[in-house]
């Protein structure tokens, strides 16, 4: 057995013996009711139904039928009121008419504004296109001029560089050229 393994075993035995008083410690609690109350409080409570489950479908059907009957009664009442020339009904009709007119005129005005904006944008687009169309020969001429100037500049630079190379003084040969004994520490050629 290696020394390290023996040391580990000794240490484990030591810890086992040293911590033994803690093993005899225990704690008693009764949290069951607390926990269950907390869980119950954290869950959403279902809404209690006053009807047994088998009555749920008939209850839904009855609700629907009663709802339809209520709408029918309301409509009939409104028709009867309008037919008899009731003041409230007349006022409501006038108000609805005014609202409808307002809505129609508002929509028409908004449409007019939108149409005006679109027409202005189209006119600006057409004007821009006409300017571009008229200026295209000028743009082409400018492009040709720029290209010519560029070519001239390159040619001029080439002439200047070749002249400069021809007239530059020779100060030595590169060390890798034939017949050269130029070394890094200042040899001779």
């Amino acid at each position, binding site marked *: 057995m290696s020394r390290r393994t023996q040391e580990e075993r000794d240490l484990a035995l*030591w810890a086992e013996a040293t911590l033994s008083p803690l093993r005899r410690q225990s704690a008693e*609690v009764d949290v069951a009711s607390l926990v269950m109350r907390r869980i119950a409080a954290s869950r959403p409570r279902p809404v209690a139904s006053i009807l047994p489950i088998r009555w749920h479908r008939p209850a839904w059907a009855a609700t629907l039928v009663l709802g339809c009957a209520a709408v029918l009664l309301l409509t009939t009442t409104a028709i009867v009121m309008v037919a008899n020339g009731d003041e409230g009904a007349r006022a409501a009709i006038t108000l609805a008419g005014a609202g409808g007119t307002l809505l129609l005129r508002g929509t028409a005005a908004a449409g007019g504004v939108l149409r005006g904006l679109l027409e202005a944008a189209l006119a600006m687009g057409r004007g821009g296109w006409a300017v571009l169309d008229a200026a295209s020969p000028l743009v082409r001429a400018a492009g040709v001029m720029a290209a010519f100037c560029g070519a001239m500049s390159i040619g001029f630079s080439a002439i200047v560089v070749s002249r400069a190379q021809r007239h530059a003084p020779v100060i030595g040969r590169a060390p890798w050229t034939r017949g050269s004994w130029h070394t890094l520490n200042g040899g001779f050629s």
Partner: protein
Amino acid sequence: MAAEPTDLELVQEVLAGRIEQFEILVRRYQRLVATAALRMGVPRQEIEDVANEVFYKVFRSLHRYEPSHALSTWLYRITVNAALDHKRSRRHDAKSDELSPSLADDRPGQDETAGDRERAALLREALQRLPDHYRTPLVLTHVEGMPIEEVARALDLPEGTVKSRLFRARAQLKEILRRHYPGLVPPGLVEASS
């Protein structure tokens, strides 16, 4: 007499909606959780709160329980985390406030003598000097008596890491006891510990 339902059966029943069955699980494991919390350094008067928190967390995450492992291992894991959270939440308090509940703890456990209680209080104090990541595997192994592989599962660590942490934890504890609590070293093991 009807056989008691297993942990797995109870878990499945709770998950199926019979929440009242959870109370059986709580009653079955509340002593284990409370004792583990005490041994992890939670003062006795605060164990009820920690246990309440542990079981509430267990209920909330019951669907994540893997039946391939024992429920007790999972409970140890949640208890260890709850104990560490509890310690962190108390860290802003004065140090004396942290240590005094353990020292003032005079209610005996089963088979405890006065000497044992005093030694246990001092040992808990000494253990508090260890970093959490050393103290936890040490307590689970040498106090809770869990095998290495179960400790690794409870702490979600590789077994090799648990072994190396255990080695360092024992060495550090030995040094702490030698320096600050020389009377706590078992007499028969003085040679081995020196």
